[in-house]
């Protein structure tokens, strides 16, 4: 591409060519002459009166004479001009051949991303070996269709709700969580998720409704960290600095080392302390100012949190969205974490039929058929043979189209 452009621009520079262009004055002469012919045409058509035409002709004639005098004058003509001037042309060639492509490549090198391939939808939807769940949209569609037929399927809502949240469909997530709570009963994760979804629909603001949900989540499970995160965020947003400080520092002390919210939590803590007039925590922990803006990642720049004024400058709408969504990978990890939590719990308490069903369904929705089969066979092993529970599991497996796990058992 560069070569073609360069050569094309180079072409007139290196080409030798006889002089063709007349002087500007000559050009004027031609234009006036054309004008005269038009005048004659007008006269023929009768669109201009004889007298008017005569005076117009006189005027154009005068202009024409003046122009032809100028054209004839030696000083004005470009006669000398058509001889090529070597240095200028050589410099121009240098510019076109060297400077132009160099500038383009250098500039592109700074701002471009040449190694990053295109990722069109069709490409992203192809199942990829290490991530089996990429065909998410499709699965969600199937799940939705199923739920439309059987809206009383609490497990379906339970699985779908966090996925909606991840797909940036917070309103759907709110509805799904509500259904799930109504059908499956309250749980920390459900209320936490509901709160998160409500927060996202409100553009990142922890509304009173969301706050109530988070409080219920913490009420059920006092160690449920995501809900605590949002409660701390709420304190920051409402500028209750002292409350925010305790909440953030609690959260930080309870969080595992690699928790995705730590960065924001530290920024929030620093902000709260600043507000209280305390020193920001020292060390690499919290470079307060820029963490707030960095934490937002790609979205932070575009958000104009106009109302913020003097309020907490940390996580604004975009940041919260980024945090609550985390990155797709983080969220994926979270969902998987939830699933493995369930699996662990079932190992200790294998009599929970509903739990097994949920686990198997989760694996199916996540596209992890193998795991689903393993879970199915584990459930068979755990539950007394020929019990009502075992029959229920078998029926359930048939219902969702999972093959009876003979081969899984032998594995």
């Amino acid at each position, binding site marked *: 591409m560069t070569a073609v452009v360069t050569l094309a621009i180079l072409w007139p*520079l290196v080409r030798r060519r006889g002089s063709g262009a007349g002087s500007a004055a000559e050009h004027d002469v031609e234009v006036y002459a054309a004008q005269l012919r038009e005048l004659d045409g007008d006269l023929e058509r009768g669109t201009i009166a004889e007298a008017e035409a005569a005076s117009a002709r006189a005027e154009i004639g005068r202009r024409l004479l003046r122009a032809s005098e100028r054209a004839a004058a030696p000083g004005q003509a470009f006669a000398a001009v058509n001889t090529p001037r070597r240095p200028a042309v050589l410099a121009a060639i240098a510019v076109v051949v060297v400077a132009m492509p160099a500038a383009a490549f250098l500039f592109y090198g700074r701002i471009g991303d040449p190694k990053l391939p295109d990722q069109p939808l069709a490409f992203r939807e192809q199942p990829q070996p290490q991530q089996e769940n990429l065909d998410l949209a499709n699965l969600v569609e199937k799940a939705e269709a199923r739920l439309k037929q059987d809206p009383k399927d609490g497990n379906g809502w339970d699985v779908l709700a966090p996925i909606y949240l991840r797909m940036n469909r917070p309103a759907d997530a709110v509805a799904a969580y509500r259904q799930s709570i109504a059908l499956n009963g309250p749980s920390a994760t459900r209320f936490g998720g509901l709160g998160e979804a409500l927060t996202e629909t409100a553009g990142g603001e922890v509304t009173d409704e969301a706050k109530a949900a988070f409080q219920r989540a913490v009420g059920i499970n006092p160690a449920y960290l995501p809900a605590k995160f949002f409660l701390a965020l709420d304190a920051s947003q409402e500028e209750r600095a002292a409350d925010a400080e305790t909440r953030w520092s609690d959260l930080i002390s309870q969080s595992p080392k690699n928790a995705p919210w730590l960065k924001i939590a530290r920024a929030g803590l620093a902000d709260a302390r600043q507000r209280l007039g305390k020193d920001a925590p020292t060390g690499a922990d919290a470079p307060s100012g820029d963490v707030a803006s960095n934490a937002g990642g790609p979205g932070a720049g575009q958000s104009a949190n106009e109302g913020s004024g003097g309020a907490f400058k940390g996580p604004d709408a975009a940041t919260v969205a980024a945090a609550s969504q985390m990155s797709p990978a983080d969220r994926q990890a979270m969902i998987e974490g939830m699933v493995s939590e369930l699996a662990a719990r079932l190992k200790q308490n294998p009599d929970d039929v509903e739990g097994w069903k949920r686990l198997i369904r989760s694996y199916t929705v996540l596209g992890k058929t193998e795991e689903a089969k393993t879970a199915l066979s584990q459930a068979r092993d755990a539950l007394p043979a020929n019990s009502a529970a075992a029959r229920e599991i078998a029926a359930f497996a048939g219902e969702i189209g999972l093959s009876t796990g003979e081969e899984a058992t032998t594995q």
Partner: protein
Amino acid sequence: MIVEIGHFALVLSLAVAMVQSVLPIIGARKGDERLMETGAIAATGGFVLIGISFAALMSSYVTSDFSVLNVAENSNSLQPLLYKFTSTWGNHEGSMLLWVLILAFFGSLVALFGRDLPATLKANVLSVQAWILTAFLLFILLTSNPFERLDPAPMEGQDLNPILQDIGLAIHPPMLYLGYVGFSIAFSFAIAALIDGRIDAAWARWVRPWTLIAWIFLTLGIAMGSYWAYYELGWGGWWFWDPVENASFMPWLAGTALLHSALVMEKRSALKIWTILLAILTFSLSLLGTFLVRSGVLTSVHAFATDPTRGVFILCILCLFIGGALFLFALRAPSLAGGGLFAPISREGALVFNNLFLTTAAATVLVGTLYPLVLEVVAGQKISVGAPFFDLTFGPLMVPLLFAVPFGPLLGWKRGDLLGAAQRLYFAAGCALAALVGVLAFTGGTRVLTAFGFALAFWLLAGSLTDLFLRAAFLKVGWRTGLSRLLGLPSSAFGATLAHFGLGVTLLGIVSVSSFQQELITSMAPGKTAEIAGYTLSFDRIDQRPGPNFDAQAATFTVRQGGVEMTKIETSKRFFPVRQMTTTESGIWTHWFSQLYLSLGDPSPDLQTIVVRIWWKPFVTLIWIGTVFMGLGGVFSLADRRLRVGAPTRSRRKAAGRDAALGAGA
């Protein structure tokens, strides 16, 4: 790869534009033909490169490649295909790319069709075009790069703003930009003339068609935008004096003035310096419009202050080009040769009158648009200047201008006969009088202002036709010869008539709607009926309809007149879950030139009834039909062979020129 190829093509086009900014103009100074010729090729090459870049962005949109940040933020994989295409320019970055694409397109047109231009003029013009291009390419690449990447790509995009998910987006911005940017050619020609310190005879012939092209697109673009706002926003208004609308209206007013002054310049070599100034002003207003819309300064001065990079960048471009151009003008204008003289009452005089009023009107709109901004900066107050201000200032300015329109074409060049022209307008005056009396009688003498409005509209309609009628001399030579004479008239005569006629049509629509519109806002439940303007509307049903990326609530109404069913109207509200936004799809029934307009408001808390807004808009479509006439007028003017004669092939022309010169001397 495609994305990055597009990105690189854009960067390369910047390098090419930089070369084009320098080499041709040096060539023109030194008289080096080879350097001058690089301009044409660079302009074409630059256009191809930006075209590649634009196509790459578009393909990312069509394939929903969310690894491009711009695509992820403004599109969604569920959108219908058409909106995937149009999303390309439905956002800041993409629309700027469209802007430069069109700029480069016009540059390449000059390069391709400018063979007959004097070489130095052409080289200078292309260089000036390249300056603008360079500035805007830098703006795009440094502050609003549409090719910024996102890795990993998100699963789903954030969707295009639902209001923009309409066929209007496919047509309106490209047209408007063709108009805005088209004026850059007139600007470049003006600057080139100033740089050269000389106005070639070919100058006016060249400027006029380009201005005309830009003007046609701008006219239709504005009209399209107005109709779009009318049916999409659900408020039934066709013009809101919104700053964004004003931003496009100001260049239109100035461009219309330029069109007329270029006419004087072409025919009479007069008003040269004024035309150059006007060319500069017109494009400056286009740039100002771009600045107002693109910097975010309009939403709020504070929004502008939170992310000033873009705004300040465009402001710099604005100052550089407008300031630079006006400075150059101040420097060079005194040395330019003035043109011919003319009496105050003459065609030229009439066109000066037109220019005076149009530029004053543009200035009025400018004040109305910028005053709130200035006030917000200085006093921190937030006010909005709306219809009342413009009705009081813009309206009175237009009345004398519109009154004078029919006189213009009837006056002779150089010195005209006002009385004679007035006498020839007796028919038009009769029409106007009839309209006046008719409306007064119809309204029982209560609507005097309306009556005068109708009179003015009919005065324009009949007056613009008078010119053609007289030039064909139907009365003198009889019907048959008159008809053949009519067909023999140059098409620019039809152009002027059509454009002025269109003005009358639009005015008729405006006066009619603003005086006789009927409005009914009521809360309705299915099964209920409402009455407006002699029509009975019964609310049949309301139902849910899922769309590709939205859920719609569609209400169906049956319209009856005197018990006879006329039509069914459907109007709906669409909810877009991704953006959590609701749009209204107004239901419109066009009956002759009038429309019955329905839109849905909010449902009552118990969901039993819903607010329905109903308007009867008599002759509303005339507003837009008039602009189509104006556009057609422009096309006719453009098609006038005599404009393109500009400079026919050299040898033949020279010989002919000599002959003609001899003839003139004889």
